[in-house]
């Protein structure tokens, strides 16, 4: 299928469905027409087309009702590709459509208090009981759990084998008895995330995704899609976090010093070369030559965001903070909030979605080919691991 054919399809679809009518009906119809994600198979919201063609569809449908990329982020970016790769036909038909239209919101139950960087050491137990599984454990850093219908969930089903081998992946019903969601307050004063306590939660076996014991492989698919999503958006020169700092710099000449000036110039240059790298990476992707540079973008942006937001606070010499009230913010809002909030929130950039330490491990081993460290956890049954 090529660009012209796709445009034809979109035109035909628009001929039949009025974008000015009911939003949900329009989105459902768009899904059914295969224009949700064109690279998905037919019947599942796609046309089995090349992924590049999605941008054609988006351009053509720019003025029609849109899905909500924010609150649907986990579903679209992580759950959907995993369900597509590992789901049964029935699971795909059941879950993908309302996931895409936003009728059902998804969250991710992966991290645990004891399993962060080393996710594979997680201990949330799932025990088989006939046609059901009984799940007990605690998950953490779950965004959107409080308005999610479903979750992707990784559990430990066999503690007797080494950690990578004893996991199983489920779709968790967030309305099931025993699922308790508690807001998790951050150092900014707000609660973007949740802790989720699972106590005797019963999940039917048909919510299992992939084979029993194959959870790690399924989870890796999810995580690979997460890393691609972070830190890839195009910015203009002098945009992003640097813009917030520059605005203050230009407006407050009385606060400028030579020391801060030199630091700001250095940060400006670092932001610019990082922006250029991102632009180059996107050119490579378009040219079908994805480079390994992507692994480094999140690391670079975390460092830059932290340096720039720290600079900003120091430059303004303002000992105030905008608001410490416990709030349920739905996402990271760097630009609508004060410099103090930005400084604190940016600290999470080097932890969430893979710490900078883990990313450096990944770069050094997978990109640079450096040998791994001696491993002490590969062949030990999970239950015998030191913790």
């Amino acid at each position, binding site marked *: 299928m090529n660009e012209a054919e796709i445009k034809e399809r979109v035109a035909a679809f628009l001929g039949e469905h009025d974008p000015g009518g009911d939003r949900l009906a329009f989105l459902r119809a768009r899904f059914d027409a295969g224009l949700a994600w064109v690279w998905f198979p037919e019947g599942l919201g796609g046309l089995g087309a090349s992924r590049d063609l999605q941008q054609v569809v988006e351009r053509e449908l720019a003025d029609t009702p849109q899905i909500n990329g924010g609150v649907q982020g986990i579903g679209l970016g992580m759950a959907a590709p995993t369900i597509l790769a590992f789901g049964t036909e029935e699971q795909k038909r059941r879950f993908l459509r309302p996931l895409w239209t936003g009728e059902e919101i998804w969250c991710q139950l992966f991290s645990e208090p004891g399993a962060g960087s080393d996710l594979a050491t997680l201990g949330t137990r799932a025990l088989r009981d006939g046609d059901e599984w009984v799940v007990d454990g605690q998950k953490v850093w779950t965004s959107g759990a409080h308005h999610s219908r479903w979750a992707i969930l990784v559990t430990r089903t066999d503690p007797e084998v080494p950690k990578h081998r004893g996991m199983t992946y489920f779709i968790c019903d967030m309305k099931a008895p025993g699922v308790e969601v508690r807001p998790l307050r951050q150092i900014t004063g707000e609660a973007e995330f949740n802790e989720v306590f699972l106590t005797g939660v019963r999940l039917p076996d048909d919510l299992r995704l992939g084979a029993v014991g194959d959870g790690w492989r399924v989870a890796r698919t999810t995580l690979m899609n997460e890393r691609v999503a972070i830190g890839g958006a195009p910015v203009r020169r002098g945009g992003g976090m640097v813009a917030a700092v520059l605005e203050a710099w230009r407006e407050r000449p009385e606060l400028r010093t030579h020391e801060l000036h030199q630091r700001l110039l250095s940060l400006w240059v670092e932001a610019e070369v990082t922006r250029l790298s991102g632009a180059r990476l996107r050119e490579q992707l378009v040219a079908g030559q994805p480079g390994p540079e992507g692994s480094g973008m999140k690391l670079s942006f975390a460092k830059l965001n932290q340096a720039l937001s720290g600079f900003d606070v120091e430059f303004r010499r303002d000992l105030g903070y905008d608001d410490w009230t416990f709030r349920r913010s739905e996402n990271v809002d760097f630009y609508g909030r004060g410099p103090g909030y930005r400084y*604190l929130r940016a600290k999470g950039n080097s932890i969430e979605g893979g710490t900078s330490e883990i990313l450096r491990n990944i770069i050094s081993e997978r990109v640079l080919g450096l040998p791994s460290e001696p491993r002490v956890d590969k062949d030990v049954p999970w239950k015998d691991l030191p913790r």
Partner: protein
Amino acid sequence: MTLLYSEVEEELRAAVRGLLADRCPPAAVLERVESEPYDLDLWKTLAGEIGVAGLLVPEELGGAGASASEAAVVLEELGRGVAPVPFLTSSVLATQALLPTRDALLGELAEGRRTAALAVSFVASPYQPSRGASVWLDGGRVCGTVTGVAGADVADVLLVPVGGELYEVEGAAVAVVPSFDLTRPVATVTFERATARRVGACDLAGVLRFAAGLLASEQLGVAEWCLDTTLAYVKERHQFARPIGSFQAIKHRLADLWLDVVRARAAARGAASDTSAVSVAVAQSWNAAVAVHAAEEALQLHGGIGMTWEHPVHLYLKRAKATEMALGTPGDHREALASLVDVPAPEGGQ
């Protein structure tokens, strides 16, 4: 001049540390910061029983007649505990401003019966002492506003420097603002023709310099807590079936951080035993940055738990970042060194 701690100082440290461990460990500080950050019961014990409030006051004026060195040790411990008590603001800043006047108020402050605050912005510096302040006299009464005043909300007495003179002022309006540092909130202080008693002459830049030198010890304490707490955490936290403190990248970062803290200790001791402009500028510019760096490393190496409100590391990060701006930024102090130690700026510049 010595850079070591004396026996007397070590005893003082032990007393303060013991009291804080008992009465306000970091978890307790965290619990109170959103209601009443200052712990005035604790302050009464510290000031009166341990006698820290009078350290800088001469014996003949009712104090302990100790030196900056002892006050510095107290500040190390208060930093280590992010303790919400007005020692720096009352017993250092306000007391140091009062000292040349030998005013009777000194005795009351020394005994801890009253607490004072100097109405200067906490971001004022020896190089720009009136930053954040706009105050003037109108027929013997004080008018104007000072923003970012630390300790004003718990002070019984407000001392206001106006045009080289120090006034004790009644009836100021003190409005606490939501503060970045939860453990030492700042307030906007407004004077509308407030009644004022002239206390004496005030070398405000000198007072701020003295306090800046001692603040380096508080920053040392903050950095030490961050380093110690992180060391304990990485020894205990396991990932990949190893304590994360056994990973070499983390070990090397902590070794570097330790080296920074070792030098912060020497710098703090230097500024405490020699309160000259050079020593103060060296200690402030180094220690302010080390405290921030230590708190940032602590947060990062604690991983997710460090991002949560329930773990006290954020109190230290906020304290460190706020004191980076307080009494001169590291950049201000380095800039001052340019002329103090003859490292001249480019010609035509400055």
